[in-house]
């Protein structure tokens, strides 16, 4: 990857974090940790990998994104606003009565959101169904699925992975946000998940592990999924919950947290400095 493109993707990821925090700050608190940890992969997906049309969100041949960890909705909304799916100012309606931006992703409310998620595990089967449906319709598009590491404790995930593998859904790419934390603490404390790479390989996925904060590594991993084939793909994103904002990264219980005015000022100052360094 050219250095310039790398910097642009890093800047996009930083802008996603800023947009996400702006949305969450406007309502006072939200799922900061797991939104920050997928900002880099969202930047690569929308910045270079996915074919979408912001002016035609329901374009049937688009690539689909299912964010099964639906509580990361604000990061998706930040991304979609930056992409032009809806006005940036609308981010400040997050979770307010009548909003198009509810806490968890809803395909019937938000332009650009492809699936309704929030009850963990369910997005995995929906993504498999979408991939199968697109394949049966003869479409050449792909389905990307972001699933949380704690979410993988849901049995439905494993049912859907068996299915995707059996049905040879080479048009499905599963991105596991391995940020090592869930609501009640670390995965190790709550329910250890073992080796995701070995597990996904055992379920028949073509699997790689990359640094979930490295846009270049994510891009390379995604590029190798373009060929399709008979195996679905898994990319284990070795990520940090709260990535990109030092204070959040250093907060043990950072699944959902208040974003006070003071925190917002400090956190956005750090992100803006990063942005300046990238674009300055």
């Amino acid at each position, binding site marked *: 990857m050219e250095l310039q493109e790398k910097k642009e993707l890093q800047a996009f990821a930083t802008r996603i974090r800023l947009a996400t925090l702006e949305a969450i700050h406007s309502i006072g608190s939200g799922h900061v940790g797991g939104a920050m940890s997928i900002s880099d992969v969202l930047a690569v997906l929308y910045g270079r990998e996915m074919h979408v049309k912001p002016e035609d969100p329901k374009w049937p041949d688009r690539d689909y994104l299912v964010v099964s960890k639906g509580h990361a909705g604000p990061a998706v909304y930040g991304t979609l606003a930056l992409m032009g799916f809806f006005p940036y100012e609308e981010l400040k309606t997050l979770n307010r009565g009548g909003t198009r931006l509810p806490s968890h992703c809803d395909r*019937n409310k938000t332009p650009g959101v492809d699936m309704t998620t929030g*009850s963990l595990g*369910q997005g995995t*089967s*929906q993504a*498999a169904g*979408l991939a199968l449906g697109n394949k*049966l319709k003869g479409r050449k598009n792909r389905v990307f699925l972001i699933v949380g590491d704690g979410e993988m404790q849901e049995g439905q995930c494993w049912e859907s992975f*068996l*299915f995707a593998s059996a049905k040879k859904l080479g048009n499905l790419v599963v991105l596991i946000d391995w940020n090592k934390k869930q609501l009640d603490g670390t995965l190790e404390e709550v329910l250890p998940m073992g080796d995701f790479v070995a597990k996904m390989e055992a379920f028949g996925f073509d699997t790689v592990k990359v640094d979930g904060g490295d846009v270049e590594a994510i891009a390379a991993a995604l590029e190798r999924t373009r060929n399709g084939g008979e195996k679905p793909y898994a990319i284990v994103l070795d990520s940090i919950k709260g990535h990109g904002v030092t204070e959040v990264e250093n907060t043990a219980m950072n699944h959902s947290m208040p974003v006070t005015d003071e925190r917002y000022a400090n956190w956005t100052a750090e992100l803006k400095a990063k942005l300046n360094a990238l674009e300055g």
Partner: protein
Amino acid sequence: MTKIVYNGETDPRLCKDVIGGTVASLVENDPDVIFLDADLMSCSGTLKWSKTHTDRAIDCGIAEANMAGVAAGLAAAGFKPIIHSFGTFASRRIYDQIFLSGGYAKNDITVIGTDPGVTATMNGGTHMPFEDVALYNAIPGATVIDASDPACLASVLKQCVDRPGIKYIRVGRKQYARIYEDGSDLPIGKAVTLREGTDVAIFAAGIMLHEAMKAAAALEAQGISCAVVDCFTIKPIDADAVEAWAKTCGAVVVAENANRHGGLYDMILEVLAERCPVPAACVAVEDEFGEVGTQGYLQERFGLTAAHIEAQVKAVLARK
């Protein structure tokens, strides 16, 4: 056209074969229809057909929750999915998936739950859904059907694939008493009067229609005139028909092969309470779990026979 041909005889067809044949013809006529099962294709009469239609007959294995979610994804991709499992698994085991991935997300799915209530017979209490109706009634906008006979089953299944929302059809796999002429149209949401009467209105569905007709004949011989109304559409209930017959007769008995709580009885009581309060009673499962046995044994055990309907008709008449 709806033609009533009830004479107490059994329809020679197995309902599972009617499911299989109807699904096959739906797929033949509409490439967007797709059928999913969870290792029970031989029970839904689709197994042989599935071998030659591998792109429209998807066996998901013993993973019902995933099947429901895959169906939601297929709907989002432009398909009209029909999924099948036994009524227990097609309702409570996949409830959150049907509720959220299906109903809430507006991914339209037709669900067939076989072996409702006591028709689960030899599979016993673990496989005996008395609660499936209540669960599906609680999904906003859902359509809930207790099929009357093979003709009704074929008619409603055809309508369901193009009907928005979650559609749940409960039906036994085996034989039913024949109610309607083959090819009859049974519009969803319209109750059908099988027999007119003046003293008590019996609203029934599914296997209880045959019991209700037997009870009405026996009661007529005793000088009691009963209307029998087929409420195969439990939700949306045909409130106008319920109101009209309740007003005509002034007393109501509801007969259903399900728990008395949350099913057809409740749907009808809502109409009566709001539009025309009259004495009512039910013949239904009295808030119990299922158990193993022949259908005849179980109908006696849970009080789901013509004799039980007769007794309730007399009880409700005494309260008029």
